[in-house]
C-alpha cells in the first residue's frame, strides 16, 4: 500500500497502541529549555524516577535569557532562579547535553538542533515548545508538547499521541523576486486561518519548496503551528543530506551510508492518500505583513485591511477588538505607515540566511533614526558566521548593533520588550496581544520587509 512520508515515520516509531486510545510513540530526540521543563523534573523527583535516556535530550537555555552582558549574572532574580534550576536539574539527572548561557552551542532550541546535527531525517522529535515543527524541514515528525508530556519523555522516552490527519500543500511554480519563505508561510496561514490545519500534520511539497534552502524550509515548517497544525514536514532530498553531512552529531562513516540509504526512502509514495490536499501558485504570493493580533490576519504588503462586511458575523467582535488593539481601521492600507521597532531573530528567522538577506538590503544604507532595531542571532553558531562572513561590518556601517543569541523579543520574557502602543515590524512568529511586551503592536514580516522598515522607518515594499 502506498504510504505518505508521515505514515512511514509514524509507523516506524509505534511501541504500542492503547485500546480505543492513542499511540505510544517512541521519541528519538527531545529538546528541552528552561521555561517548560522545571515542573517536569519536579514530577520525576516526586515519583522517585531517573531520566530514562539522558543522551537523547538536548538542553539549552534560550527563552528567559538576556541578549546583552550574558557573561554577567542575570539581573532579574526570578529569571536567574529559573536558569539556576535548569542547571541544577541538568546536574542532578546527569544530563550530558547541557548548553547553558555562554556555551558555544547555546542558542534558540530550534536553531541549535539542526546546526549541530541533532536533527536528522526520519526522526521523531519533541520539545516543550510549539515551534518544534521547525525540525520537520528535515523530514521528521516534530511537534510541540506540554510539560506533562516533557515529564513522560524524560521518564520513558515515549509520548501518547492520537494519530493526526494528514494534509499536503503543493506550491507550484517559483516564488517571485523579493518573496521569501516567510511570505509563503504567512500567505498560507492567511488562507487557512489560525485554526485551519488543526488536527492535521502537513507535508509541504512542490517546486517552490524543492527550490528552498534548508534555512527557508525551516522557516516554512516553523510556522505550521500558526495555522493550528500539529506539525509540518518536507521530504528530505540532496539539499537536506548536504546540510546534515559533517555536522557534529550527524552519523559518520559506514553509519552515514546506512542512514542515507534509509533517508532516501523517506518520501510520500506515488498515489499515497492524504486527508486533504491543497494547491497554491507560488507566483500569487507577495511580500506579506500582518495587521491584526493573530498570524492569520495577514495580507500582501500592497493590500488593505479587510472591511467589516468582509468578516463573518461571529468573528466581528474579535476582528474589531484586534484592530482597536493595533490602532488600525478596517479598509486601511499600511504601506508608508511609520513604525518604531524592528526585530530580526527568533526560531522563525534567526538563521544565517536571514541575516544575509537583511545585510544585503541594508548594505551601504543608513538605519532610520526613528527606529530601534534589535538584531538577535539565533545561536552563537549564527553569530560566529555573521562575523566570519563580514555581515557584522555591514551592520555596523549602517548603524546597527548585533545582540547576543536567545529568543529575545519573540516572547519578551527578558528585557527586550516593545513599549505599549509602539509598532514593531518583527520577523518572529506571533503577533498576539502583548506577545512582545504589554501593549506592544506587532506586525509580522519576513527579513527583507524588516530590513526595508529598518532603513526607511516605515512599512515599505522592499521590491520598489
Amino acid at each position, binding site marked *: 500500500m502506498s504510504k505518505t512520508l508521515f505514515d512511514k515515520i509514524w509507523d516506524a516509531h509505534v511501541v504500542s497502541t492503547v485500546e*480505543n486510545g492513542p499511540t505510544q510513540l517512541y521519541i528519538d530526540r527531545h529538546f528541552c529549555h528552561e521555561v517548560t521543563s522545571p515542573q517536569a523534573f519536579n514530577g520525576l523527583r516526586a515519583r522517585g524516577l531517573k531520566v530514562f535516556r539522558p543522551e537523547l535530550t538536548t538542553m539549552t537555555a534560550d527563552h528567559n535569557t538576556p541578549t546583552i552582558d550574558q557573561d554577567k549574572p542575570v539581573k532579574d532574580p526570578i529569571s536567574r532562579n*529559573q536558569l539556576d534550576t535548569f542547571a541544577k536539574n541538568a546536574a542532578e539527572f546527569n544530563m550530558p547535553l547541557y548548553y547553558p548561557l555562554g556555551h558555544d552551542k547555546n542558542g534558540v532550541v530550534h536553531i541549535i538542533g539542526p546546526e549541530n546535527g541533532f536533527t536528522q531525517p526520519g526522526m521523531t522529535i519533541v520539545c516543550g515548545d510549539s515551534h518544534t515543527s521547525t525540525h520537520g524541514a528535515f523530514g521528521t515528525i516534530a511537534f510541540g508538547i506540554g510539560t506533562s508530556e516533557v515529564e513522560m519523555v524524560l521518564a520513558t522516552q*515515549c509520548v501518547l499521541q492520537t494519530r493526526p490527519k494528514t494534509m499536503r500543500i503543493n506550491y507550484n511554480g517559483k516564488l517571485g523576486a523579493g518573496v521569501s519563505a516567510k511570505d509563503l508561510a504567512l500567505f498560507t496561514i492567511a488562507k487557512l486561518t489560525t*485554526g485551519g490545519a*488543526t488536527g492535521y500534520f502537513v507535508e509541504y511539497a512542490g517546486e517552490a519548496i524543492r527550490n528552498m534552502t534548508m534555512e527557508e524550509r525551516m522557516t516554512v515548517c516553523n510556522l505550521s503551528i500558526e495555522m493550528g497544525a500539529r506539525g509540518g514536514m518536507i521530504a528530505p532530498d540532496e539539499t537536506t543530506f548536504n546540510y546534515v553531512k559533517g555536522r557534529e552529531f550527524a552519523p559518520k562513516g559506514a553509519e552515514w551510508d546506512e542512514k542515507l540509504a534509509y533517508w532516501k526512502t523517506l518520501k510520500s509514495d506515488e498515489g499515497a492518500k492524504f486527508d486533504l490536499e491543497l494547491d497554491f501558485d507560488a507566483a500569487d504570493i507577495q511580500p506579506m505583513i500582518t495587521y491584526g493580533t493573530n498570524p492569520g490576519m495577514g495580507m500582501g504588503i500592497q493590500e488593505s485591511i479587510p472591511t467589516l462586511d468582509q468578516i463573518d458575523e461571529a468573528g466581528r467582535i474579535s476582528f474589531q477588538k484586534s484592530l482597536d488593539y493595533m490602532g488600525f481601521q478596517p479598509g486601511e492600507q499600511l504601506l508608508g505607515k511609520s513604525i518604531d521597532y524592528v526585530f530580526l531573530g527568533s526560531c522563525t528567522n534567526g538563521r544565517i540566511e536571514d541575516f544575509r538577506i537583511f545585510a544585503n538590503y541594508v548594505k551601504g544604507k543608513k538605519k532610520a533614526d526613528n527606529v530601534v532595531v534589535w538584531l538577535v542571532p539565533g545561536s552563537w553558531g549564527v553569530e560566529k558566521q555573521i562575523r566570519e562572513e563580514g555581515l557584522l561590518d555591514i551592520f555596523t556601517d549602517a548603524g546597527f548593533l548585533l545582540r547576543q543569541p536567545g529568543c529575545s523579543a519573540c*516572547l519578551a520574557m527578558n528585557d527586550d520588550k516593545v513599549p505599549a502602543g509602539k509598532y514593531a515590524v518583527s520577523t518572529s512568529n506571533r503577533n498576539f496581544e502583548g506577545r512582545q511586551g504589554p501593549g506592544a503592536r506587532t506586525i509580522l514580516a519576513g527579513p527583507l520587509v524588516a530590513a526595508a522598515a529598518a532603513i526607511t522607518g516605515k512599512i515599505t515594499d522592499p521590491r520598489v
Partner: protein
Amino acid sequence: MEKFGTLTSTVVPLPIENVDTDQIIPARFLKATNKDGFGDNLFADWRYNKDGSPKADFILNNPVFGGSILVAGKNFGSGSSREHAAWAIDGYGFKVVVSSFFADIFKNNALNNGVLPVVVSAEFLAEIFDGANKDPKLTLTVDLENQTISNNANGKSESFEINAYKKECLLKGLDDIDYLLSKRELIEAYEASRK
C-alpha cells in the same frame, strides 16, 4: 489527578474567538519553577490595569458571573504549547472549558491536568452566550460518563466526543505517566529491535 464525574455549575462567558495561550497566561509569568499560583494571573492583561487594579469591564471581575465552567469563542487555546495555560485555568478553579473548537496542544494539556475541554456546536455555544447574558444564573451540566452537556436554561443537550482512553483516565484520576511507566518492557524491546 482528581477524578471527574458530573458537574453542574454556572458559567463565565468569554465570547471572544482565537483566545491564544499568551492571553491565558502572558509569557512574563512563566518564570516560576512549580505549578502553583498561575490562577492569579489567568488572563492577566485583560484582567488587571498596569497598577494591578482589576479592570472593571473584564468578565472575571464582574461579580455577577462565576462558577467552574469557562465558555469561550471558537479556537480556544491556540498558539504557544505552554501548559501554564492549563495550570492557570485549573488554578483559577475552572474544571471545564466549553467552546466550539479547541487548539490541539491546549486540549491535551487540559486533559493532562484534569480539566475537561468540551466541544459543542456553534449553535449550542451561541445559546449559552445569549442565555447567560439574559440570566447569569444559567447553569450547564457536564456528564463525563454519558458524554453529555446540557444547557439547563433551555433544556437542550448535546453529546460530546472524548477519546475512550482519556475518558477512563479522567474518571479514575489516572495520568499518562502511570500508563507509560507500566510499559517499560515494551519500550526496551522496541529499542532492541531497532539496533
